[in-house]
């Protein structure tokens, strides 16, 4: 009974889509190093689709695997589709996460969400599924989610 599933280990050992996009259309950052996890997601959008997605992640094995999985799940999807990616979907695709690591799967989806929001604001567009989800404001001192 290892701590992490095979799938998590695969993504951790060989994370997909790591990196930055210099001329990203949207950037979303979440978490902070005090809590042990921090992610920055970059998206490139074309025809309402996520043409490219990259990220940088500071954090535990789960945080890295989650970032990788989120990037896989949304690449090539429309923005609306991408917004339907939920933390529990991410955890499920990763064949489960230890209970105390579930907050990592929240972070991944949130960071992507923020990147899309950033894109929407910059381009002054309205994306269904975006405005009705209010981002919880981060609290520097509350690391547990």
């Amino acid at each position: 009974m290892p701590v992490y599933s095979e799938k998590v280990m695969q993504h951790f050992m060989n994370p997909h889509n790591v990196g930055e996009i210099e001329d990203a259309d949207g950037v979303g950052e979440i978490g902070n190093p005090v809590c042990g996890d921090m992610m920055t997601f970059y998206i490139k959008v074309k025809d309402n689709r996520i043409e490219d997605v990259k990220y940088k992640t500071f954090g535990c094995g789960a945080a890295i695997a989650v970032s990788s999985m989120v990037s896989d799940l949304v690449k090539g999807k429309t923005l609306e589709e991408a917004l339907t990616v939920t933390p529990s979907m991410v955890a499920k695709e990763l064949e489960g996460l230890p209970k105390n690591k579930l907050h990592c799967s929240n972070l991944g989806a949130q960071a992507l969400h923020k990147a899309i929001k950033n894109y929407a604001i910059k381009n002054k567009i309205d994306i269904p599924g975006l405005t009705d989800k209010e981002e919880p404001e981060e609290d520097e001192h509350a690391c547990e989610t």
Partner: protein
Amino acid sequence: MDNVAAAPLLPEVREAMLPYLGQIFGNPQSLHNWGDGAREALEGAREQVAALIGGASEEIVFTSSGTEANNMAVKGIARARSEKGKHIIVSAIEHFSVFNSARTMQREGFEISLAPVDSTGTVIPAELLKLVRPDTVLISVMHASGEVGTIQPLAEIAAGLPKDGPVLHTDAVASAGNIPVDVKKLGVQALSMAGNQFNGPRGSAALWIKRGVRILPLLDGGIQEGGRRPGTEDVPAIAGLGKAAEIAKRDLEVRMERLSGLRDMLIEGVLGEVEHSVLTGHPVNRLPGYASFCLRFIEGEAILMLLNSHGIAAASGSACTSRALKASHVLLAMGINHELAQGSVLFTLGPNNDAEDVKYVLENLPKVVDRLRQMSPLYSKYLKEQKG
């Protein structure tokens, strides 16, 4: 190189235990002959353990873990002395088994003061002594830290205490069997130790309590260990603890020299070859096998997992490795900030490690660190700031 968490059992220790997993299965409390072998094992081990720390064998109580020994010491002594006063001092870097025991005593009406440490993780005797009050009944300061390896100036603390004042307990779980431990020289009245920290078996630990120091038992029950720690004795574990103590005493100097050498090689190597790395704990007064660092911009659990993929075992005090998701209170007490504390990594060297192992770590650690930094948003920010 995670010898603390996964200390290999010495073959001689294993041999000492096996008979009690086989034919000599007697109960030391029994009157019949079969109990005699077990009783001899128990009393022999008691002498071996006492010899390791310079105590008397009647002063040794066997427990099931360092945690239990610490709980028994802190709660048992505080409760036994509660009529004299209800103030306890513990250092800010105690293991949770001491720290949380003190908190339990707080719920029982005690006041707790935390003695601060400096940036090397060393308790400052003058600061601690300032906290002593007439109603202070117990002081607990670890002998050496299991996270950063710093050895504490216990004798200096003991020397500054009023006569017939507080009882001084030390958690020597990380030190006993690894560096010289002499209860008289340390000036303590109670000391916890655990066999699995010096290649003895799990489930084997002991509390030494100086004759005359009152303590209430943690476990209530029958008459084993003179009623101070009832429950059927784990004879094989205790026999193994005794043997491990004997070997530790015999080999102490040689082992210390060898491990300190390897440790210093590892420390120099890491500090030299990994940028943005800092040594945690005291540069000199540290346990022989302990090399502990903080590596900036990256997180401990990820470091451990990648090291593991190279066959290297290590530990960390990062929030993510702690299950409680809090960075090590030891690192924070030393003034290390949360961000840096996330990059904590601890290598502990043991009898099975050699220079080849150290070289192997020194080859692979930089790669692991580099790979994680390439992924780290903190590192790219740092690089950008450097450029800009």
